[in-house]
């Protein structure tokens, strides 16, 4: 059997949480060369559903390394009855950044019960891979990601609003944003940085940092108003 086949077998035969973790780490770190083993992807996806958090983290890392070809298997595996597996799938898709995960990331940020899942979704929405897309699709995806992140600004958990600030920054840093989108984005960051509107100090600091980093990219006409946080979405 080839080395990857052996590693898959080791995961499937693991008798304890500890050996499962070790075997998953091995499989996740495998070098697939030119031909990726579909069984390896399937096996890593299975691990997401095993209620073994350490192994799931390793599997998520392995799936992120595999990138776009892991997306379909992850989406196909989604089971509404297994919340844990779904939460890990959101994390994997957020890390891969493939636009096929957009629906799930939007839904997760808007309504997942776990703040750790919403925060991963917010990050993922900011770092979707837009470059391979056609211009029209790119604009549509960017707008949906922006809308989802604007909704996330009202999340009740500080860590999610923190992740939304990070997501808005990375969205704003990429690819010819439209002036209107850029204004909405800066206005949202200005609000997250405003002590009248945001209680949590660390969220304010992160949002202001993002605002500072994006401001030089905004066309001059918008700059004055945006700098004062006066642009309304």
């Amino acid at each position: 059997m080839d080395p990857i086949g052996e590693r898959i077998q080791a995961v499937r035969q693991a008798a304890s949480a500890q050996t499962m973790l070790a075997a998953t780490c091995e499989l996740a770190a495998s070098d697939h060369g030119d031909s990726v083993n579909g069984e390896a992807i399937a096996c890593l996806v299975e691990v997401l559903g095993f209620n073994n958090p350490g192994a799931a983290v390793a599997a998520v890392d392995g799936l992120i390394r595999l990138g776009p070809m892991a997306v379909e298997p992850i989406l196909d595996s989604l089971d509404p009855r297994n919340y844990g597996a779904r939460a890990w799938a959101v994390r994997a898709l957020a890390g891969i950044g493939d636009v096929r995960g957009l629906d799930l990331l939007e839904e997760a940020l808007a309504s997942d019960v776990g703040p750790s899942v919403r925060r991963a979704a917010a990050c993922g929405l900011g770092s979707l891979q837009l470059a391979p897309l056609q211009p029209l699709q790119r604009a549509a995806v960017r707008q949906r990601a922006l809308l989802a992140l604007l909704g996330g600004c009202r999340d009740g958990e500080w860590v999610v609003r923190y992740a939304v600030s990070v997501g808005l920054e990375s969205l704003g840093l990429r690819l010819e944003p439209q002036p209107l989108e850029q204004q909405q984005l800066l206005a949202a960051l200005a609000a997250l940085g405003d002590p009248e509107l945001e209680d949590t100090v660390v969220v304010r600091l992160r949002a202001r940092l993002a605002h500072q980093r994006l401001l030089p990219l905004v066309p001059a006409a918008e700059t004055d108003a945006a700098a004062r946080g006066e642009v309304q979405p």
Partner: protein
Amino acid sequence: MAPASSIPAAQPLPGDGEADGNGEPISEGEALARLRQCADQSHQYYAAWWLGRNRSRHPEAVPLLITALQQRRPRDPLAGVEENAVARNAARALGKLGDPAAIPELLAALDDEDDGLREAAARSLGELAAIDAVAVLLRRLASGPAGAGATRPDSPRLQEPCEAMLEALGAIGIAEPGVLALIEPFTAHERPLIRSAACRALLQLSGEARWADPLVQLLDHPQLQVRRAALMDLGAVGWRPALEAICRTLAENSLKLIALRGLVEQGEHHDASIQAEAVLSAMDSLL
């Protein structure tokens, strides 16, 4: 994304539970009404929690919670949701609402025979930075690790809720020699969680780096529960020199993020050489 070194817990993750755990959504008015009635203590129990969780600013919230705290009576382990459970939740909520009017009743609760209630009262008095609580806390802890810190014959609990009381002394912030001298022996307590609480308090009060070293060492402790406590303690102090060690700790990213938030928000008192921006950058990579 999560680095391979982190171990998230099974769902729900710590910090996830309460966030959306409001149960059935109720209004502030409903919560106040539930706390006001006395027929159903499970309703009172939930209402007291709700008012704290949602940081109620209603003028009736604090008086009603003080009344609920006064409802306590000698513990009856056979009762279901007893008054003391309501009183404990009321004590916790009073700490979150930040009104010093609650201090006298919380001080009285520090001498209650229910150690769970003493624990809740100590934490809340710490949150309220109640200087008047220092003398009572010192009195309850005066017998040291061998007395207040001794394990009870009938349960694994300690004679006093030392962890909460030590943390309260750190939070209140009276750095007098007598306070430091009383806390110091607890840094050698047999239980790592007590050592962690004592070091946290001493680090907060004195700012001396020697109390940070044991906390950083506890980040490598074999038990996850201890590593989590050390993370929270370093975060509460805002000890920025621990930045790298916190990032490397085998624990959930959710908890590391809470600790790093503390480094950003509390950390300026300690070490200006590590800028807030470096901590923010570390937080970004844990999302």
